[in-house]
């Protein structure tokens, strides 16, 4: 079962809202070159390239056909994996499977997003189109415009996350100030990460609380940015990994279970059988599978660090519970006590996470990449002080129904 494989090199680009100094091909090239350099290999050694992004934002269909050269694809096997917000996580898992299957010895996983290529406000174009067909359908049946605006635009940037946050706050007792705390922590952590987007060195919850309200409980200070950026990882099988890398980040377990649509509609504006979008059954099951593969029976004790995909601060709390890191409804209490800080007992998103840097296609791969850096001890200023034996990297996307959970460790299975 499962041929052991590990991440031996990571590369990412500086993220900002407009990387006008490079075209999308060059952006990807920067990440790939950095990853190959870090791994100590050349493009000749790569057996297979797995790539992905959300093509809607860039306006180019199947971009790997066009910019493949910059990822070293010509003449090599290549697979394009794209699953919405979890694209990066699926790409990372895909790169692992290509090696774990025994078909290839070294694989490259690349994910990117260049939001500034889209004329409209960053992420809006591509995201609107997830529900496009359904919206047109509903409008044909006389859905009132007022209803449409009120239900989709209020909390527009936040989409369904607003409702998800409300459900969580209602059942757990979490308050708005806790969201301020999480957002401030993300921006403080990001200031220690040279590649992150929203860097705010001494950000305090009171700074976040001063920003304007979008729709309770979300403020403008809570929302993630839309970044341009790319990330790449090099995955190698055991022998090669041991030869080339002092401390590889071993893949211990993976899960990518999809739930019923959690957002308000199914295909063609139907309803969905999920009342509470903070329930996230898919995340529970994915984590179960990943932990089972990794041989983890008590995540609260065995996981040393988590990189959670949290475009909104409420999601850091929600998903940390669903990943089994805290008991149900208690994440905000542990966060309040400082347990999720860089030097805390359960550091979460010490890179700043998606709340501080969001190049959608690559964000979930960045979570795997950051977890790998922590396991390898290469994270620089935002390296956690304790030894990281097992780390979990998480991604969510789709209509809040797609999840990827990846467990990395400092020794193989």
């Amino acid at each position: 079962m499962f041929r052991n494989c590990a991440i031996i090199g990571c590369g990412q680009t500086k993220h900002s809202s407009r990387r006008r100094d490079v075209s999308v091909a060059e952006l990807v090239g920067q990440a790939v070159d950095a990853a190959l350099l870090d791994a100590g290999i050349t493009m000749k050694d790569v057996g297979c390239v797995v790539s992905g992004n959300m093509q809607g934002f860039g306006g180019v269909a199947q971009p790997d056909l066009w910019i493949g050269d910059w990822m070293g694809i010509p003449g090599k096997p290549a697979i394009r994996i794209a699953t919405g917000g979890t694209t990066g996580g699926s790409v990372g898992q895909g790169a692992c499977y290509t090696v774990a299957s025994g078909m290839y010895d070294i694989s490259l996983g690349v994910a990117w997003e260049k939001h500034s290529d889209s004329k409209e406000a960053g992420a809006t174009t591509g995201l609107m189109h997830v529900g496009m067909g359904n919206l047109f359908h509903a409008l044909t049946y006389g859905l009132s415009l007022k209803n449409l605006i009120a239900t989709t635009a209020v909390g527009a940037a936040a989409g369904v996350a607003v409702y998800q946050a409300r459900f969580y706050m209602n059942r757990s007792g979490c308050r708005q100030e806790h969201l301020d705390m999480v957002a401030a922590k993300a921006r403080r952590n990001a200031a220690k990460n040279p590649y992150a987007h929203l860097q705010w060195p001494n950000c305090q919850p009171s700074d976040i609380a001063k920003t304007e309200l979008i729709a309770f409980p979300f403020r403008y200070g809570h929302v993630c940015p839309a970044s341009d950026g790319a990330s790449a990882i090099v995955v190698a099988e055991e022998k090669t990994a041991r030869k080339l890398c002092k401390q590889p980040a071993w893949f211990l377990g993976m899960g990518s279970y999809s739930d019923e649509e959690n957002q308000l509609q199914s295909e063609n504006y139907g309803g969905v059988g999920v009342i509470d979008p903070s329930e996230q059954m898919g995340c529970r099951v994915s984590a179960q599978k990943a932990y089972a593969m990794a041989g983890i029976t008590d995540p609260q004790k065995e996981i040393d660090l988590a990189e959670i995909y949290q475009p909104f601060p409420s999601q850091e709390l929600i998903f940390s519970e669903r990943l089994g890191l805290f008991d149900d409804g208690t994440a905000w209490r542990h966060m309040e006590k400082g347990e999720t800080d860089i030097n805390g007992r359960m550091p979460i998103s010490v890179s700043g996470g998606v709340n501080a840097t969001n190049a959608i296609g690559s964000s979930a791969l960045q979570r795997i990449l950051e977890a790998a850096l922590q396991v390898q001890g290469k994270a620089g200023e935002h390296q956690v002080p304790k030894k990281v034996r097992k780390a979990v990297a998480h991604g969510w996307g789709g209509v809040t129904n797609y999840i990827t959970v990846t467990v990395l460790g400092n020794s193989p299975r």
Partner: protein
Amino acid sequence: MPYLKDERPATMMVEGDWQVGAYRYKAPRLLEEFSAGMKEKKIIGSMCMGCGKVITQPRNICGRCHRRMEGRRVLSDWGTITCFVTSPPVEKGRYKIFGMDPVDTGTLKLGEILIPVFVRFDGSDSNINCLLLNAKPEEVFIGMRVKAVWAKELKGAMSDLEGVEPIREK
């Protein structure tokens, strides 16, 4: 770290267009039943004969059972609020829909406070997302009982269900 500095001068911009409007989407006739029900002040849900779940607006396929949701149920027009969000007072330029400002077109009034809610009508296993009417933002709470507000003129369209309002003691 050679890639951290922006060493190169700005690139040039090349315009392009991605026409999404040219698509023809295929749709089932499920919403037709729902809209026809609206005309009679009925909220219709589809039911899975395998697990018994009732979903509204009607959906085609039950994921758990992997079968079509062939049953139909008429739900009560009384329900419970499972979640709500309150907007700050509407300002010009805050919302844009299909390139137009809804304050300009009269869809929304300046200073209006919108309260979109998730309502679980009795008998349903899903939420409907609609507006809470005739209520002040301070009095809304999760678990509040509401009833459907129907348009004065019923056209057989989704807009016939204008929203919900709190059930008040007379």
